[in-house]
């Protein structure tokens, strides 16, 4: 049991526990806080996978922007009576069954495949390779531009949808 494995097991346990608390917390703001913990543990997993850039982007994007958006939305759409009743709808047992069945199917399928593991490690200049790939016309420049158009559409759309009609 190497130290890296111990760190992974601790982080994985934290991720699973916080995800479970997200979907079972009664108070919505507590659920959002647990979501932040879970997003942070995913960033730690990215660091374990030697993708430091993605870990930093995860914290900036998810915790610094999306989680704050979610907390804002919770605070703007609260009704006083809402937090006290049960937070699950009538068919929660069916959902739990479906989720468990899917988990079993996924684990079974994933264990059957022989993955072509690569012997090379992560190169030192993976960040540089990623940067070049983003702007290379033969690689990923088109998805990059499409992603920026998508963000522009989302920006305009959310302002139009949620803006005050005066």
């Amino acid at each position, binding site marked *: 049991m*190497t130290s*890296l494995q111990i760190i*992974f097991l601790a982080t*994985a346990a934290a991720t*699973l526990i916080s*995800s479970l608390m*997200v*979907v079972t917390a009664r108070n*919505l703001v507590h*659920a*959002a806080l647990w*979501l932040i913990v*879970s*997003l942070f543990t995913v960033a730690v*997993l990215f660091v*374990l*996978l030697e*993708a430091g850039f*993605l870990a930093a*982007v995860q914290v900036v*994007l*998810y915790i610094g922007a*999306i989680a704050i*958006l*979610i907390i804002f*939305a919770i605070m703007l*759409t609260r*009704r006083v009576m*809402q937090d006290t009743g049960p*937070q*699950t709808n009538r068919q*929660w047992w069916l*959902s739990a069954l*479906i*989720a468990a069945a899917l988990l079993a199917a*996924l*684990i079974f399928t*994933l*264990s059957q495949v022989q*993955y072509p*593991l*690569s012997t*090379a490690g992560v190169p030192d200049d*993976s960040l540089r*390779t*990623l940067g*070049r*790939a983003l702007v290379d016309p033969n690689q*990923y420049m088109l*998805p990059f531009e499409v*992603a920026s158009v*998508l*963000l522009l559409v*989302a*920006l305009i*759309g*959310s*302002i139009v*949808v*949620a803006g005050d009609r005066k």
Partner: protein
Amino acid sequence: MIPLSWYLTLAAAVFCVGLYGVLARKNAVAILMGIELMLNAVNINLVAFWHYLTPTLASGQMFAIIVFTVAAAEAAVGLALIISIYRRRNTVVAEEIDLMKW
């Protein structure tokens, strides 16, 4: 060395927890939180595959960045919709927003 299967199992578990959150919760914002968990699980999977199968290419990280972008855009528009619905119908409980049900 951490085996690849550990990462894949963790990602599958988080995905299924998110799926339960989407299917079983009443509040629309809570459903959105379940969707974010599912997108995170997908990201863990992508980066794990990148690390173990093709670490010299940029495609794994690129796909993860696109997933980040889509998640951010969808969270923004989804929350805008929820706020707009709350203004009209004064509720965000998914069961009570049933005007178009037959």
